[in-house]
């Protein structure tokens, strides 16, 4: 996997006290992550692990969906509340359901908008979930 990156000067200090997001690229996730596949530390998390050997841009997109606050939509995946999904969420292919390359669906967009990690208080500025301050 080749990653083209733009260096942006930053530090925890100018991340408003929040931890920075990190993407760790390991040679192969088998034997490294719990599932053996690419993972994010939690829904709304800030630490992604992907494998150079087998993962594609679609895999990274799926994991970035988790960092943004979206849950899985495939059987055995984790929904937005951290629960194991007993079956695929009905509906067409989408980025949180499979690796077909299909875009996010409305459920994913809603989960991201309402994610606690994305909602600031009005004292801090805009609140996406409440439609603004």
């Amino acid at each position, binding site marked *: 996997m080749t990653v083209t990156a733009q260096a942006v000067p930053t530090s925890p200090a100018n991340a408003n006290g929040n931890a920075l997001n990190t993407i760790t690229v390991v040679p192969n996730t088998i034997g490294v992550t719990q*599932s053996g596949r690419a993972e994010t530390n939690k829904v709304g998390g800030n630490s992604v692990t992907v494998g150079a050997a087998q993962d594609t841009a679609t895999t990274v997109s*799926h994991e970035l969906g988790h960092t943004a606050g979206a849950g*899985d939509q495939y059987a055995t995946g984790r929904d937005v509340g951290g629960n194991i999904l007993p079956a695929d969420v009905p509906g067409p292919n989408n980025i949180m359901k499979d*690796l077909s*390359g299909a875009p996010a669906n409305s459920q994913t967009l809603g989960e991201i908008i309402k994610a606690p990690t994305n909602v600031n208080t009005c004292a801090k500025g805009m609140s996406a979930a409440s439609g603004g301050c």
Partner: protein
Amino acid sequence: MVPAAPPAKCEIALPVWCIREGAYEIVSQFSKHNAYRRVWIIRGFFKPSSPLIVREPYGCRQGLSDQAEALTFDKHIKWGGKEWNRMTVQLKKDGSCNIELLVPPFSEDPTGEAFFGGLALVQRCMTTSCDGDSLGPLRGRFEMAWRDSRE
């Protein structure tokens, strides 16, 4: 357990290998060459002009993969009016399924859409339900030669 990527599934499953879901376009052609049964053209989302070409011998239509051995890397292979780099991978020990993977030279596709992205979409089938590994890990065997294909 933490949230993880969905398990990779085959978009098109053949007996010895499969094409994983994630391609923008997959084209299957009858081969004009006696040695191959079909030619598969796999294009990604980001640079469709740099496809991965898979030339599939007849022996890939029966049995299972019992091997994933990087055999050779060759430059200046002509196909479809263009020149390609060719990686040959043995998927069966009896040698009946040595698939040929054609990617554009480094100079034409320096981001490696076909080399990196394409190879990750090709999986060998070790069971009848096509459980198996991606050929992505074999890239390390070919990468230096591919990066040298600048001329």
